[in-house]
């Protein structure tokens, strides 16, 4: 039980993510989470505004069920399968985060400096979540996939477009982490 309650090492987690992908392939589907955002747009009536959303959303509804499961999985993992152990971040990371003004790094999954109600009720905090989310949604669709669709499924299928997209993920991530975050915090 202790093994389950503690954070799982990468060599357990990584292969289990492959398992999720393989199960979906064997179910005749593909592992890709960001397409749900397009489905949500279509359900919300976006097909009236752009052809891109003229899809039969019912044929993608299986993926919305995966989303529902993911929410439940997040709940189960934190409520029943965790012992509250802090994230074992590297010393350098904690030091760098302290310099940026993040205290208690790793004690929760997300930094309260960004995600607490206090933070999001400020203009800065609200802007971070809105801009961050917008870029993720826009970029994922422009690139035709996200971490699951490109980095996991696409690379597993040895697709060059996915490699280009993942290189893009890293260009963006490195610029944000090394140059923009220090300007914001």
């Amino acid at each position, binding site marked *: 039980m202790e093994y389950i309650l503690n954070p799982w090492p990468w060599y357990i*987690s*990584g292969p289990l993510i492959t398992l999720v992908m393989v199960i979906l392939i064997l179910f005749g589907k593909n592992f890709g989470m960001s397409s749900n*955002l397009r489905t949500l747009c279509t359900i919300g009536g976006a097909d009236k505004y*752009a052809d891109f959303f003229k899809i039969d959303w019912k044929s993608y509804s299986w993926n919305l069920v995966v989303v529902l499961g993911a929410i*439940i999985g997040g709940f189960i993992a934190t409520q029943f399968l965790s012992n509250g152990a802090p994230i074992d971040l590297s010393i350098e990371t904690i030091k760098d985060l302290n310099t940026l003004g993040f205290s208690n790094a790793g004690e929760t999954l997300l930094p309260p400096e960004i995600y607490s109600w206090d933070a999001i009720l400020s203009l800065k905090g609200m802007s971070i979540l809105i801009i961050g989310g917008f870029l993720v949604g826009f*970029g994922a669709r422009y690139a035709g996939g996200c971490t699951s669709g490109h980095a996991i499924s696409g690379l597993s299928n040895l697709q060059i477009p*996915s490699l280009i*997209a993942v290189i893009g993920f890293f260009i963006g991530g490195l610029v944000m982490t090394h140059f923009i975050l220090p300007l914001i915090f």
Partner: protein
Amino acid sequence: MNFLKFLFVGILFGIILVKSEAVSWYRIFEMFKFQSFHMYGIIGSAVGLGIVSVYLIKKYKIKSIEGQKINILAKNKSFINYLLGGTIFGLGWALAGACPGPMYILLGTGVFSMLIVIAAATLGTFVYGLLKSKLPH
């Protein structure tokens, strides 16, 4: 049955991503700082095993559980949309610390402010749909 099997996959996915800490903003920050092997180990082992799995599925022409031919969708052969879109995605990923799977999972862990990120990501997708024909692909 169809509903339950996809629900099960989602639950499995959610549990794995929380327990791996891949849903953590801190882990994403640490990854982009190259200060830990953790995230590279997760993605690397997932992809390594994924390459073998996909290869075997194709080689032995394994059928889906409904007996259908497995068809892994190939992506269009273009370049600039992957690089530009990927870069935009990466900027958001490192800022919000959540990509399109984890944002739902984190909602399940009780972080309700994630609803703002999900709403903004849906808006981002909508704006992409509006601008698609004007963007380089």
